């Protein structure tokens, strides 16, 4: 799969540092599952975290501390999970036939067609993921050719296209692509004409829809 829109260093660094809210983490982990480029950069940031840890200094361990630690583990068995096999076939990394990235499956199950969608008006449907924290992650189903109501963001919005595609004034986004919109972005994505668009979106502040009708939509979206 050729992806053209990737996760920024800033967001990837937050993810590696463990500072990203869970809702955004689902989007990031899902994209990385599909994207070798972002996976490689993530691995680099993890290694950077390791290097920072290695450079730390602290008071040497006392015998008491070591003794306490050894008592703690004395009767703990080894975890039963098997070691990672070193040779296996390649991972299926395709968003085909309604297949979803593994990190997303942990929240919504294996298949799109069994998802308990809720209609939010204009043919648009959503499913809010059960994540903790104040940021929200939701799946959106946008019928072909349909416009998502004009909205700006109080904060960051991170979107991963799962199926179909959409475009806004500047760009177009296909399966696996990441769309990052900041607080200052005011955009009106439109799903492509040929098929419905399904995406995963995380926001850290309520969406602000413009105009009366969209505000009704917003109350339905319950953001």
């Amino acid at each position, binding site marked *: 799969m050729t992806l053209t829109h990737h996760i920024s260093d800033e967001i990837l660094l937050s993810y590696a*540092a463990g500072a990203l809210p869970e809702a955004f983490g689902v989007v990031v982990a899902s994209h990385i599952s599909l994207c070798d480029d972002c996976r490689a950069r993530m691995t680099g940031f993890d290694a*950077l*975290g390791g*290097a920072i840890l290695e450079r*730390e200094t*602290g008071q040497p361990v006392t015998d008491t501390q070591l003794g306490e*630690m050894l008592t703690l583990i004395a009767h703990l068995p080894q975890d039963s999970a098997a070691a990672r096999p070193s040779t296996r076939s390649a991972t299926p990394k395709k968003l085909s036939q309604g297949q979803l990235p593994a990190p997303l499956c942990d929240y919504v199950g294996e298949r799109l067609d069994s998802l308990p969608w809720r209609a939010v008006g204009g043919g648009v449907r959503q499913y809010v993921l059960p994540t903790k924290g104040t940021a929200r992650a939701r799946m959106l189903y946008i019928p072909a050719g349909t416009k998502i109501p004009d909205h700006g963001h109080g904060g960051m919005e991170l979107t991963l296209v799962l199926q179909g595609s959409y475009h806004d004034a500047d760009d177009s986004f296909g399966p696996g692509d990441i769309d990052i919109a900041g607080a200052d972005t005011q955009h009106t994505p439109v799903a492509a004409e040929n098929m419905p668009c399904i995406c995963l979106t995380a926001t850290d502040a309520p969406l602000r829809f413009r105009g009366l009708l969209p505000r009704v939509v917003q109350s339905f979206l319950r953001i």
Partner: protein
Amino acid sequence: MGKAPDSDDPDWGSVMHRIAEARDIDSFSAVFRHFAPRLTSFLMRSGATRAEAEEVTQDVMTVLWQKAHLFDPRRASLSTWIFAIARNRRIDRLRKERRPEPQEVLWGPEQADDHTEAMIMKQDTAHLTRALTELPEKQRKLIERAFFGDLSHSDIARETGLPLGTIKSRIRLALERLRHSMSQTTR
């Protein structure tokens, strides 16, 4: 600040192997002596009290004891592996959230033997540590801050008094330098 990467540089892959296979207490003690002070310091710099930091350190070392067989020296350095465990424990404890993880990449047929791959990983790790040490201090400090936890760039801005734009561009510069430095020794 840190020790030079080569001054004490045990073969952590073998050490971890002895923990996994033989439940070797001496090997575990060596890992604990090396990493516990670093972890506690790292966690305290992330905002934990000493008591909290020591508790999380014990947590992490317990996980290490139980999951030693999952450590793969071809894929990550031990410090990176421990960093990742500590990060996830912290998210779990402080925020009560879970951390979505990417799907594992399954490895294809090996290109080189395990030992060679582990050696390459070790060299890369030493090199990254050196590159980090050689960063201008202002840049390194900001990269460290970014890794010390739940701090957004705006939080760092408040704390350091630096404008947000300066922080972002310094972090960007630091990453560019690290990448440049790492590409200089590409085999």
